[in-house]
C-alpha cells in the first residue's frame, strides 16, 4: 500500500454545505483513505492509495459533482 497526499485547488467555495457533499462522496471512493475539504482556501486534501486510484480520477469525481478543478 502506497499512500500519497495531494491538494486539489478548486474555484472559490462559497457554501459550507459543499464540504459535506465533496467529503462524503470522495470518502466513499475506492482507494481514497481520507478526503478533507479546506473550505477557506478552497482546496481538497486527499490521501489516497496509489495502487487503487490517481489524482486524475479524483479530480474527475470532483468535477462531476459540479466543482471545477483549477489545478
Amino acid at each position, binding site marked *: 500500500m502506497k499512500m500519497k497526499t495531494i491538494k486539489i485547488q478548486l474555484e*472559490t467555495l*462559497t*457554501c459550507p*454545505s*459543499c464540504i459535506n457533499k465533496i467529503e462524503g462522496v470522495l470518502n466513499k471512493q475506492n482507494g481514497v483513505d481520507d478526503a478533507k475539504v479546506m*473550505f*477557506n482556501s478552497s482546496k481538497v486534501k486527499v490521501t489516497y492509495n496509489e495502487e487503487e486510484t490517481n489524482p486524475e480520477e479524483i479530480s474527475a469525481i470532483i468535477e462531476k459533482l*459540479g466543482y471545477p478543478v483549477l489545478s
Partner: protein
Amino acid sequence: MNINTKTRNILTLVSGGLLLAALAVYLLTPGSLAQDIILIVAAIFAGVPIAIKAFQALRMKAFSIDLLVTIAVVGAMIIGEYTEAAVVSFLFLFGHYLEGHTLQRTRASLKSLMDMAPLEATILKNGKRITIPAEEVQVGDHVIVQPGGKIPVDGKVITGQSLINQAAITGESVPVNKTKGDQVFSSTVSDNGYLEILAEKVGDDTTFAKIIELVEEAQETKAKTQKFMERFAAYYTPGIIILSVIVGLITLNVHLALTFLVIACPGALVISVPVSIVAGIGNGAKNGILIKGGDKMEDLAKVNTLVFDKTGTLTKGKPEVTDIKAYGISTDELLQLTAEVEVTSEHHLGKTIVKKAEEKGLKLVHNPSDVEIMKGHGLRAMLNGQQIYVGNKSGAEKLGIAIDIEANEYMLQQQKNGNTSVFIARDKEVIGIISIADQVREEAPATMNQLRNAGIGDLMMLTGDNELVAQKVAYQLGIDKVYAELLPEDKVSKVTELKTSGRNVAMIGDGINDAPAIATADVGIAMGGTGTDVTMETADIILMSDKLDKLPYAIKLAKATIRNMKQNTYFALITVALLLVGVLTDKIHLASGMLIHEISVILVILNAVRLVGFPKYQVWFKWLNFNAKKRKEHTETQLTV
C-alpha cells in the same frame, strides 16, 4: 455539463433583468399573461444552474441544498406561484455571487501574503547568470539578488550587504541590515544592495512556504464554537425537512411546506464562525503572528495569566558590560588585561568581556599561559609574568584573595541593580570589578503596560537565574510574580501548578529552551519563529519577529476575533429563530425567506471582513475590569535579600 462561473453570472444577471421587466409589466397591467411568462422564463434561467448542481450531487448519491431549492422552485411553479419561484432562484444565485466576492475579502490577508512568494531566481552557473523559476533552485546554488529584488530562497549571504525588508516573514517593515554570514529568508526584499546567497532551503522547505502551509492548515482547524454550530446544523436541516413534510401532510398547504425547504439551510450559522476565524488568522499572519487554529484563538482570548521566560524573552539574551571599576590601574588597562586572559574562554561572560574590549579598540597583545579553569568560579592564568584571576567572589575567596569593604560594597550595589560581578585579581590583589548584565529589551516596559490594557491580570516570570537578578528585571518591568533559580523541569511543574489553580495560562519563551513549558501551558507562545522548526511545531502561537511588542497585538486580535465570532453566532441564531417563527406564523414566504436568509449570510461575512483591517473598524467596549491590577509598587527593601 458543468456550468462555469461566468455563464452562471450571466444567467443570474439575465434572470434579475427579467424580474425587473416583470415588475414593470405588473405596474402597467397587473396580473397579465405577459407578466407570468416573463417570470417563468426568469425562474428557468436562474433555476437551471441550481437544478444541474442538484442533479450532479444526486447522481453521486449526495444530498445538497441545491436539491431543496430546486424542489421549492419547481413546486412553486406547479402551484402557480411564479413570482416566488423566480425570486427564490434568482436570490439563491445572486446570494452565492455576493458571498463569493465578500468571502474572498475575508481571505484577502493570506492571499496578499501568498502574492509575496518569489517567482524567479537568478543563479550563478559556470560563471554565468541564468534566470530560472524560483522552485527550481537547488540547495547549494549561488543565488544573485539585485537591489530591489526578492530573495527566492532561505540561505546565507556569501558576499554583499543590503538592507532587507522582512515584512513577508516577520510583519515588520523596518529594514534589517544583512551582510556576509547572515541568514536571509525567501520572499523578503533586498532594498539597496547586491547580494550573493548560498541556497540552504528551497521550494516548500523555506520558512515562507512553511508559514503559508501552517496558516492554511490553521484556518481549517475548527474552533470549539464551530463544532457546536456544525452539530446544530447537522440536526437542523434534516429536522426542517421532516417538519416540512409533516406540516405539508397535515395542513395540505404546499406553499408552507415549500417555504420550509427554502429556510432549511442555516447558511449564516454554518459560516458565522469560520469567516471570523479566517479573517483573524489572516490578519495575524500578515503581521508576523501565526495562530495555529480557531481553537487556539479562543484559548488566547481567554488567557488571564502570562508567564514569561526571562533570558532572551524579557531580556535581550545577550549579556553586556554595564560598568567597569578599576583599583589602581585605568579601566582600559583592566579591560585589556582581562580580555587577554579571557580570549581563550568559552564562557559567555568571558566572551562578553572580550567583545567589549574589541569594541573599545583595545589591542590584545599578550598571550596567557598556564590557563586553569576553576569550574563554577572562573579561571586563573599567567599573563606577562603575573598571576591573574578572573571570576566570582567565592572563587576569589578560595584563592585567598582579600576583598576589602569598598569592593564588597560596590559588588553588592551592582548585584542589586541586576548585574553579575566579575572580580579581577593580580597576584592576590583585587584590581577591578567588571559588571555584566543581560539588558531588558527596550520594548519590554511599554509591552507590559499594553498587556495590562489588553486585560491580562497577572504577569509572571520564570527563570533559571539567581533571585537577585530576577527580582531586578521584575522590578523594572512591574512583573507581579517571580520564580527564580528553576531547572527546566521546574518550569514545567510551575506552569502545571498555575493551570490547576484555575488560571488560563499562556507561556512565552524562545521556543527552544522553553519548549516543554510552552507545550504544557494552555497557550504556548514562541518568539523569534524564524529560528527553528522545533519552535514552529511546539508552540500554539508563533511571533515571527524577535520582538515582544507583537504580543499585545496578538492578544487584542484574538479578543477581537472571538468577539466578532460571537456577534456572528448570536446574529445567525436569532435569524434562524426569526425565520422559523415567521414561517410558522405565515409572515414569511418563499421569496422573503430566501431574501432574509441571503442577507443574513452576507451580513455575517461583512462583519468578519472588518477583522481584515484590524485594529481599524473596531468598536472597543471598555468593560469595568475589576481584575486588572496596577503595576506593583516595589520598594527597594524588597530587593535587598
